[in-house]
């Protein structure tokens, strides 16, 4: 039993951009050319993209750099949804949708990207790490031996995006029944709630019976 206690520390210095630059340099010395790209938004945040093969190594490097706090791990599917928002008029001609895959910060080459964030608990600075996941063989090395908390996040990502994690102890589904087919957070997985019901937003105002097309004063 230790006594009740509290600490009163002054407001920590808000991490600056020089600190973030140092982090990039430090990481580059540790993983070398596997650091493919980085983006530093001044006064905001830091994005780093590493090669797929160096994913595990990056985790180890970040841990040893003091980024001990595991925030989250997830993925992004960069393909635009072929279904839109489900707000289409079925009577109108189908809308053209832009289906080019455009990656976000720190670039990328594949449709799927892994995204994780770790934080340095005493410097109060975080890093967003991205890595490409190939479509043909979507398997990345698991982070769960480095960050125990990645276990569940990887399970979730596996379930939602269909990305495999080599070395993960137990890639069961977290949310969905085990016989569920498909990966719900992929963009080509339709959101059924928006499919089963017609969009009520289609204008349903009967015109004047044989009336003139005089639109004056309509917007009363």
């Amino acid at each position, binding site marked *: 039993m230790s006594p009740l206690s509290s600490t009163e520390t002054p407001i920590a210095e808000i991490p600056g951009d020089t600190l973030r630059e140092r982090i990039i340099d430090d990481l580059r010395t540790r993983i070398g050319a596997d650091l493919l790209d980085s983006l530093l938004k001044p006064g905001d945040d830091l994005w780093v993209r590493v090669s797929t093969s160096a994913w595990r190594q990056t985790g180890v490097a970040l841990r040893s750099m003091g980024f001990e706090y595991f925030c989250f791990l997830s993925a992004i599917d960069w393909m635009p949804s072929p279904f839109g928002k489900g707000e289409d008029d079925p009577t109108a001609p189908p809308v053209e949708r832009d289906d080019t895959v455009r990656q976000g910060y720190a670039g990328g080459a594949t449709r799927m990207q892994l995204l994780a964030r770790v934080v340095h608990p005493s410097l109060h600075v975080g890093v967003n790490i991205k890595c490409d996941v190939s479509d043909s063989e979507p398997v990345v090395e698991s982070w769960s031996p480095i960050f125990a908390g990645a276990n569940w996040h990887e399970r979730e990502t596996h379930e939602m995006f269909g990305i495999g994690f080599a070395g993960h102890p137990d890639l069961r589904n977290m949310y969905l029944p085990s016989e569920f087919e498909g990966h719900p*957070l992929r963009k080509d997985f339709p959101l059924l709630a928006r499919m089963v019901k017609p969009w009520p937003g289609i204008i349903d105002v009967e015109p004047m019976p044989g009336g003139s097309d005089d639109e004056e004063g309509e917007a009363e």
Partner: protein
Amino acid sequence: MTSTESLIDRKQLAYIASQAADARLNVELETEGMTLNIGPQHPATHGTLRIIAHLDGEQVVWAEPSCGYMHRGYEKLTEVRTYPQVTSLVNRIDWLGSFANEVPFILAAEKLMGIEAPPRAQWIRTILFELSRIANVSLFLGDLGVQLGAVTPVFMAFRDREHVLNLIEAATGGRFHPNFDRIGGLKDDLPEGFIDETRAVMKKLRNFCTEMEDLLFGNEIFQSRTRGIGVIPKDIAMQYGLSGANLRACGVDWDLRRDQSLPMAWDKVDWKVWTHPDGDSFARCWIRLQEVRESTLIVDELLKSIPSGPVMAKVPRIIKVPEGEAWVSTENPLGEMGYYVVSKGDLGPFRTKIRSASFNNISIVPWVLKGVYVPDIITILASLYFILGDIDR
């Protein structure tokens, strides 16, 4: 890395050794294990969480939470909604502190748009944020009593939380789901009489905290049930991404309200981050109690200095967020709640990763439940404090 792993290893080795000793005894006594399903419908899970516990007598050999009974797919749903519609959705993630859920999302969108809410809006946001923390955590304090077998605290918690909910409702119109935060500010200004009313309520809440201290925290039975139970070391907590009071109870002095610069009013007042060195169930609960009291003080301070002016910045009528990515997390009642918003310049987000506190907080359960007794499962779960909507999203 090595130190942490060796710690886990040591703990596990010790555990395996004790298990082996038990097993030898069990062979002599011819006992066999039993699998106990706690939940999905169980009074202790307040929601539909299922804990599969393999027991040897009343001791847990291994336990594993099985979630997903309440998975609503919010990350998918945000992709078909516009930014104003998303706030009404993310309200429902941690339904006890709804307003706090809206703030990081709105801040992320504002960050992408490069706008900032006017000072008065920031103040009111912070006040409502703290009010929702009080509403959330005061219920935790009451619920804690129920989990440990004391029936009275929960009613006291509901009694005093009611005042806070009334305040939130008077200001926002919604008791549980305010949906009051807008990109660029707030939907409306405060109604007349809010400030005086809030002061009176904060006094009641501080009184409630004292009552809880006398009724529950000072109680020797409560202490013997929670002290030394479910100890989480600092580095394990970090690895699992525990946040909020759970992390501070391990002695980590980290509060996102203080340790990052957000366009909110926390840095305008003087307050204290509470930590506790023990890392056990008692520490977690105790930190929360102190934080409720601290929150009431923050609210009082903010009410004194609330600036006048507009509550809404100039934003276009139809909100399109420029292309980009943003991560904003805040110190929510349950812990670090963050949104990773990816925008493609559309009316709605392209992808939103919702990092909810309870998901990480509960992922440590298999680790921490090893070797405890059945009653301690309940204590530990209660002290980790999760909300189902926050785990499953």
